[in-house]
């Protein structure tokens, strides 16, 4: 009952003209960045952060969240019509989605993708609404040792679930943690790795690093490839699926919601993993698995639902614990911090109008997105006709202005370019960049929790196994490391091979 009352209050916040407008702008921009290959939700959110400076924090987070989940909807369009994932989570949709387009069923694939995304997204918000306050209440009991243990598990999971093996992700996490230590030590005021450069005293800005590694790095790689791509046309009347296609997609949609919701809670490339797991499950459950890859609707419905459900459940650790599980929630966290609001266990009780306003706006946003992505799909497809050689200078300029506008600093532009080169090099070397970015942002909290715990226990490490919570979590991280060692030496499962091939 309390949840319903809170939700009612949330709708009162979200249904003001200004907030509905901001939600619409966020969803529209999210769909555009999702459709356009080369700009993901991360760059899309970072770019609009300066535009939120004049807004109240509720409006700002409503708009930025709209970009995040809107990009998941838009990502499927390019996968289905062009065989190019607009967003990394839509990689698997290319397999059967594009084959459906070749058979003249691209419209139906788009419809089912949007329908599944809506169901997955909406059920994901119900889960978020019910689980986040409970988790936040539980996390209020956390002191520094518990926080250290939670973050330790998060990092081991990040290594386990990232693209590639644990041992390939581990050095990226370590590098991210090391970069996160640059700047003034918050406990003693000592300068670390600053070499007297004043701009580094506050640490390396997260936005130039993320925009550089993802935005500029992606452009540098994309400009190497051929830029001529075929786009299939879709008419409105072709959007309706047949009765058989609708019947076949129900099961994958609900299974995709469950998989996506659970996997979305985990740190790392959860969206990608959720869509791959859903695809593999559908293929396993199918009566004729050999038909997968030749245009099965289940291969579109399951993964698209899963990545949308994952994007909603990824908000749970971010809002309730202050731990972003992916680069896009991390940028949203930066935006909230700029507005003076810190997500974490106290966030829901201290800022109920922001939390419940955001939840209510997500229900509204999901409806807006279905409207944007079905009747107006042709409009977004036209964006794909803009040649990439026109598009990439626009994206570059957007990254440069987006980074400059946060602190009005050309030094941050140098960091942007530096990390652009970093992103390019590591893409070529096939190392995953997302764990680096997440480690960089969560690292300072991990270090602080570790040092505060030891100060509290007068230097005794026993503090990490005194409470049942920390002991369980530390044993869990140890078990996960052992499991990863075992995984590295045993033969790979079919879904792991499929995931690697997809990358």
């Amino acid at each position: 009952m309390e949840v319903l009352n809170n939700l009612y209050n949330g709708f009162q916040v979200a249904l003001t003209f200004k907030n509905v407008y901001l939600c619409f702008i966020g969803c529209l921009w999210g769909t555009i960045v999702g459709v356009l290959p080369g700009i993901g939700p991360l760059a899309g959110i970072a770019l609009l952060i300066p535009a939120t400076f004049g807004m109240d924090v509720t409006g700002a987070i409503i708009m930025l969240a709209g970009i995040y989940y809107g990009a998941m909807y838009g990502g499927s369009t390019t996968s289905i019509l062009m065989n190019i994932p607009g967003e990394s989570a839509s990689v698997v949709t290319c397999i059967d989605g594009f084959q459906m387009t070749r058979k003249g069923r691209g419209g139906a694939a788009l419809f089912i993708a949007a329908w599944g995304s809506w169901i997955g997204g909406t059920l994901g918000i119900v889960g978020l609404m019910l689980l986040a306050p409970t988790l936040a209440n539980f996390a209020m009991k956390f002191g520094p040792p518990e926080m250290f243990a939670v973050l330790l598990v998060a990092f081991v999971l990040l290594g386990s679930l990232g693209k590639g093996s644990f041992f390939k992700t581990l050095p990226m996490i370590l590098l991210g943690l090391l970069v996160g230590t640059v700047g003034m030590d918050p406990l003693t005021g000592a300068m670390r790795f600053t070499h007297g450069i004043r701009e580094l005293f506050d640490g390396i800005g997260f936005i130039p690093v993320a925009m550089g590694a993802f935005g500029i790095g992606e452009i540098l790689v994309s400009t190497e490839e051929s830029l001529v791509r075929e786009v299939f046309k879709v008419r409105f009347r072709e959007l309706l699926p047949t009765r058989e296609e609708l019947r076949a997609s129900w099961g994958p949609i609900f299974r995709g919601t469950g998989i996506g919701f659970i996997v979305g809670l985990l740190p790392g490339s959860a969206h990608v993993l959720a869509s791959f797991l859903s695809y593999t499950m559908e293929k396993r459950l199918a009566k004729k698995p050999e038909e997968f890859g030749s245009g099965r609707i289940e291969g579109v419905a399951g993964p698209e639902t899963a990545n949308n459900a994952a994007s909603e459940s990824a908000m749970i650790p971010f809002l309730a614990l202050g731990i972003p599980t992916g680069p896009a929630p991390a940028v949203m966290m930066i935006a909230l911090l700029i507005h003076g609001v810190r997500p974490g266990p106290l966030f829901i009780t201290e800022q109920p109008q922001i939390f419940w306003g955001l939840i209510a706006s997500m229900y509204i946003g999901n409806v807006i997105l279905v409207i944007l992505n079905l009747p107006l799909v042709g409009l977004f497809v036209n964006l794909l006709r803009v040649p990439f050689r026109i598009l990439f200078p626009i994206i570059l300029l957007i990254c440069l202005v987006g980074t400059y506008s946060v602190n009005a600093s050309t030094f941050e532009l140098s960091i942007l370019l530096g990390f652009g080169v970093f992103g390019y090099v590591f893409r070529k070397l096939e190392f995953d960049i997302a764990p680096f970015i997440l480690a960089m942002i969560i690292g300072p909290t991990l270090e602080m929790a570790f040092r505060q715990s030891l100060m509290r226990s007068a230097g005794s490490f026993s503090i990490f196994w005194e409470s049942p919570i920390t002991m369980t979590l530390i044993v869990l991280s140890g078990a996960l490391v052992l499991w990863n060692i075992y995984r590295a030496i045993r033969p790979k499962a079919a879904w792991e091979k499929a995931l690697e091939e997809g990358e």
Partner: protein
Amino acid sequence: MTKEQGGGLIFLAAGVYGLIFSIQLPMGRWNEPGPGVFPLALSILLCATGLGWTLQGRSKRQIEKRFNWQEFLEKLATPLKIGALTLAYILVLDRVGYLLTSLLYVFVLFWWVSRYKLWIAAGLAILLGVGSWLFFQRLLAVQLPKGFFSL
């Protein structure tokens, strides 16, 4: 060299850098850990994993997946051009101002990298340069550098 070896060498270099500079930081005691403890531990682990990947890359299985340097260098021209132009943009932005620098930057990108004809590149540059200035400066009220000409 394999891709893993390349990555391993970068991690090793970063680890050695971290090691050199974190050793110079105060370490404190266990009851009050200093600012050097965490970076030192990370640097040691980074050196170990970097070394691991450098050696692992020499295994027979990895040697079969050698990094194709020739292909890499052939494709490097466009990213190099973009990188150099972006560096020049960053260096002059504060002095020349957003409007002029961006006009020139996108013009050279369209003409030199995208290989449009001179007049098409100029037209696109004016459209994008002025359009972005109006959008960011006027509509979103983003503070952009004005440069000598106060534009």
